[in-house]
Each structure stands twice: as C-alpha cells, then as structure tokens.
C-alpha cells in the first residue's frame, strides 16, 4: 500500500513547572492513503499529542526533541512556518473534541467553513461561500443556504460537530485527524457522527487518524488500531488482530474491563489496578509493569521491543519472548481468541 505518512521515533517533551514531562517516548507508525488508523489510549497516554505533533499544533512549552514525520517522504518537522500553514487545513486537517468551544463564536458558520478555501486557493469569496454551502449540505446541516449566516451558538452540539467536520473536509484533505470527535457527544449523536465520517471517507477518499479512548467506537470505524500507554505504542495491528488476538496485557485489561451486553453480573469485571505512571519520571522498564498481573523481573529492568505477531501485528511485551512462560489470559480474552480462530478458518 501507498504510505502517505510515516512517523518515526517521535519524542515530545513538555517543560512544566515541576520539570520535564516525557509525554511521547518514541512512537512509530505509518498511514496508507484512504485507510483509517485508530489510536486508543487513556487520558494522559499521549495519543492527542502524537497527532498534534503532525500538524505542529502543540502548546508553547512542548518540544519535539527527536524523530521525523514524513509526509510523502518530506519531513514536516523541517518545514518552515509558511510551508506548514500551506499544509494545514489543505492537505492535512483536524477535527477537535469539543464542538461547543471549537467554533469562533463571533463569526458566521458560512465564513468559517469557507475560510480554508480562501486561505489555500485562489477563489473568490462568492465561490468559497458557494462551496461552503455545498459541504454543509454534505455533512447534513438542514437548509444550509439560510443557516450560513447563523452563528455557532444557534446550533446544537451534534450540528456544531458537523460544521467542524465541514471545515475540515472543505478542501478535500488527504489526511483527516479526528481527535476524540465524539467524546463530548451523546451516544445517539456519536453514532450519527461516526456514520457521517465513514460516509465522507467513502466519498472523498481521505485517510483518517482517529483518536479515542472508546474501544467500541474503534471497532466500528478502524482498519488498523494502535494501543497507546504512557507515551508509547504497546500494540498495533489490524482491527481484527487487536480485538480478537490481543497480545499485550494492557490491551487485555482494556478489552476486559468493559462489560459487553452478555457479561452477567456474576462475573466480576476485570479491572486494571492502580494508575498510569507519572511521565515526569518514567519507569526504567515497561511502564505498565506495576499494574501488570503478568509482570516479570525483566519488565522492571528493560523496556520490551516490539515482537512480531504477524506481518501486520506487533506488540511490545516480554511475554512474546521465546523464553517467557506461557500465561493464561483472562476468560474474556480467551473467548476473543476463539473468535479469531474462527475468522482464520473462514
């Protein structure tokens, strides 16, 4: 497949009052044209910082101190401000988490949607507004012509997120970064927005990087999934591989701590004990080790490399080392393995 984006060995630090936080500690991934990559992780795991690094939309105290971000082979980190401006909103665009705050409250939505066109293309205001209207219709805003002159506060949360999406896709970007776009929304609205994103992807063929903490949402939208913990990827693979053949104990914990509709009250939920580490002083070994039921001595001493599970599936856990003991994953995960076998048989 055609790789349009390659992130290599990305490290991001934040200078804070208490010291340097090593928020991203060596992240590698790539993105093919038209596919959807989901990055899953809990708050503070660094998933949002990872994607913001791509567009260099980080807070002022952030420092991308190592790594390359290759877009069609060119390192975005070496681009000038002006060159980056030309990419943002044109080639790569972004959808944010909170639709209630991400629109300019004093500008009509028509103008806001037309803005990227006016920045990146030599079009007249009229043309841009006409195109904005079209896109607003595409994302499902009723009567877009009349509503172009309305202000953000006149729309509901779900509609505002549609407008934000309209802004992001108005210039047909090659890559769309969606940073928890449905977290602030109700379940039914979330479903609508996800359907809309899938539909738009079909129509305009954009690749999507989808950030979320909700594994349910991932299952519905992703082609490939990366699981992030404490500033690193711990496992990545195709959506079926990660959901039905997970290898990292953290992925096990995540999948198993959510009740499915057939979990009965008698089986205790499998909770992950403790809390994520403080990245001011990241642990020497595997960051997940203190919370890991299956931790070994080596986990405390050395960070695990990625072990290959299949051509597309990798996990960073010492359990995959040939010398590691065989462990029995939680019941819920075993059920998933069975499903994976069935899928393989098909």
């Amino acid at each position, binding site marked *: 497949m055609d790789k349009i984006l390659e992130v290599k060995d990305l490290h991001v630090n934040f200078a804070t009052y208490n010291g340097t936080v090593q928020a991203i500690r060596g992240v590698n991934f790539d993105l093919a044209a038209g596919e959807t990559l989901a990055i899953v992780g809990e708050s503070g795991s660094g998933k949002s910082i990872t994607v913001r690094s791509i567009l260099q939309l980080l807070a002022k105290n952030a420092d991308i101190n190592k790594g390359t971000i290759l877009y069609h082979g060119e390192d975005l980190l070496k681009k000038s401000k002006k060159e980056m401006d030309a990419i943002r909103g044109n080639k790569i665009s972004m959808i944010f988490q909170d639709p209630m705050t991400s629109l300019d409250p004093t500008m009509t939505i028509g103008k806001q949607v037309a803005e990227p066109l006016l920045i990146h293309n030599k079009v007249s205001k009229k043309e841009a507004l006409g195109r904005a209207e079209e896109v607003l219709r595409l994302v499902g805003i009723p009567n877009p012509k009349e509503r172009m002159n309305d202000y953000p506060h006149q729309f509901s949360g779900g509609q505002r997120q549609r407008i934000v999406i309209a802004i992001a896709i108005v210039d047909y970007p090659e890559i769309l970064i969606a940073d928890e776009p449905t977290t602030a929304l109700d379940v039914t609205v979330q479903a609508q927005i996800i359907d809309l994103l899938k539909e738009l992807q079909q129509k305009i063929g954009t690749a999507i990087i989808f950030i979320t903490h909700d594994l349910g949402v991932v299952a519905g939208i992703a082609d490939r999934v990366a699981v992030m913990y404490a500033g690193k990827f711990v496992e990545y693979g195709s959506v079926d591989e990660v959901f039905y053949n997970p290898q990292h104990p953290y992925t096990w914990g995540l999948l198993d701590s959510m009740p499915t509709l057939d979990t009965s009250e008698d089986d205790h939920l499998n909770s992950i004990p403790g809390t994520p580490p403080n990245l001011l002083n990241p642990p020497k070994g595997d960051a997940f080790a203190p919370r890991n039921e299956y931790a*070994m*001595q080596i986990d405390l001493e050395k960070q695990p490399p990625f072990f290959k599970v299949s051509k597309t599936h990798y996990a960073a856990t010492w359990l995959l*080392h040939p*010398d590691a003991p065989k462990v029995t994953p939680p019941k819920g995960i075993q059920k998933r393995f069975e499903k994976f076998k069935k899928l393989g048989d098909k």
Partner: protein
Amino acid sequence: MEIPQIPKDKFKLLNNAGNKEQEKIGTPALTYMQDVRRRLFKNKVAVVCLTLLTIIVFISVFAPIIAPYNPNAQHATLSNLPPKLGNLNIPGFNGYQNMGGKMVDAYAQVHAPKGTYYLLGTDYLGRDLLSRIIYGTRLSLIVAVLATLVDLLIGIPYGIVSGWKGGMTDNVMQRIVEIVSSVPNLIVVILMMIILKPGLISIVLAIAITDWVTMARLIRAQTFQLKEQEYVLAARTLGESSTKIATKHLIPNLSSTIIIQTMFTIPNAIFFEAFLSFIGIGIPAPNASLGTLLSDGQKAFRFLPYQMWAPAIILSIIMIATNLLGDGLRDAFDPQSSD
C-alpha cells in the same frame, strides 16, 4: 527482527496481583498554600514588591523611632531648605539651591546651626520633610488598611449571602448594589467628606462605603459557582448547616479571590485618600498624609521640586508594588493564568 538475548531467570512471573504498591502516592505532601507560596517566591517581581512593601510597612509602624524629627515641629527660620545629606557633596543633596541662576548654600544663608541636616529638606514652615513623609505614609497606610478591612467586613458576608440564597433575596441585594455602584464613587466619597467631619474615620468610611460593592460582586459571582460544586452539594447531602458550609467550604475556597482583590483595594484606597487630601478635603492640618504632602509640594513645585518628588515617588512605589504583588498573587493562586 532479532530477539534480544536475556538471561532466563528474568522471565519469572512476579505475581503482581493484589500489589498494594499501586495505590502509593509518590509525591511529597504539599498543601495548597505551600504550593502557592512556592510559586509566589519563584516570581522575582513579586518578591521585590513584597520586600519593598515590608520595608515601607516596617518604617511606618516604627515611625516614632525612625523619624529624625517631630513631623509637626515648625522652624520659621529654617523653611524651604533643600535636601542635605550630611557633609557629602552629592548634587541635589548638598544643601545648595539655585537662586537667581547661582547655586547657593541655602543652609548657610539662613544661618542654620552647624550639624543641621534635613535629608529631604524642609517645607514652607520649616518642618522636616522626611519625618513628614514617614508619618504621612503611616497615615495613608492606616487609611488604606482600615478601609480595606471595612470593605471585607461588608463585602464578603454580603456577597456570600446574596450568592448563596439566590432568588428573591439575591435580586433585592443586587438592585441595591446596582444603585450604589451607579453613583460615581468619588461623588459619594466627597459627599461623605462634606457631611462628616474631616478626619481619619470619615475618610475610611467614605472609601469603604463605595469600595465594598466590587468585593461583594466578586464574592457573589464566585459563591454562585461554588454552590454548584459537587463538594458543596455533598456537604448538603450530609446535612451540613449553611453557616458551616460557608466557613468550611466557601470561605477557604474564596480566599484567593479575597486576597487578590484586597491587593487591588489597598492602592485604590491610598489613591482616594491622596486625592481627597489633594483637593483639600482630606486629612486636616497639621497632620500629614501622602496626599497633603503632594498637595503642598505641588504649590511650590516650580521652585522647590524636591518637595513634591519625594512623596510622589513613595506614593507611586506603594501603588506599583501593591498592584504588581496583586498580579503575582493571582498567578500564584491560579497557575493556569500565567503560563
């Protein structure tokens, strides 16, 4: 991909389950106030201001010991002497004065006894300016502190009651605040000064009567937010009484607002005192305040500029330092606002 060679014994399971370590807190215990102090002392500007203010307050408190002369003692013969710093020949502080284009030793001219030095010179009645400034600062600070205290005593309870009760009570209380604040505060102060006998108490009352409104408004707005906080709701579901909620939950969480606002009220009060004295309805003679000194100094400014420079500088330092300290405190209490 090559597989790293690791000694086999490293692959023993640790049986981590039920590990109590997971609930340990690694960071040292630090109370909120300690944290605030730490942030404040990291702010150099705030530290300088705090030091300056401490020195000024110290000098004011011990004015009777520190002031070299009686501030009200008049020496008709020694009037309008320029500053003289011992026998040091520093221009501007050597007792010389420009008279008809020539620099003349003013002290010699009035036959001042040997060893007579006025660090900041004397005024038109021959009173020592330094002593008057020390006492004047003291009086101005007393006015400011008292006015601020009255301000807090009215503003905080008013704001809390208005915000906590809400509804009709709040409505009525807010109408009152609106009326009070729609009369220009200066006019209220002037009216009060005309009606009351000029003096310390009148000035304090006059300033406090207009200033509490700002405090009350801020406290009310904060109380409105705080009362919807879940910890206050939790206290209510536990059956805590309203007074207890106010003292245990509201006031401690309002403290930063109160402290910061106080830091802005103090310069305001100092300004008003100076203003009133400047237009002649402030502290009555012979007592000095920074305002009366400025007013006196202004009259002679063309010929004897030192008589105004000194009080003007002190007043400005106090105003700047309190304002900057207020900024520093705000940043210390609310770290988000600064970075």
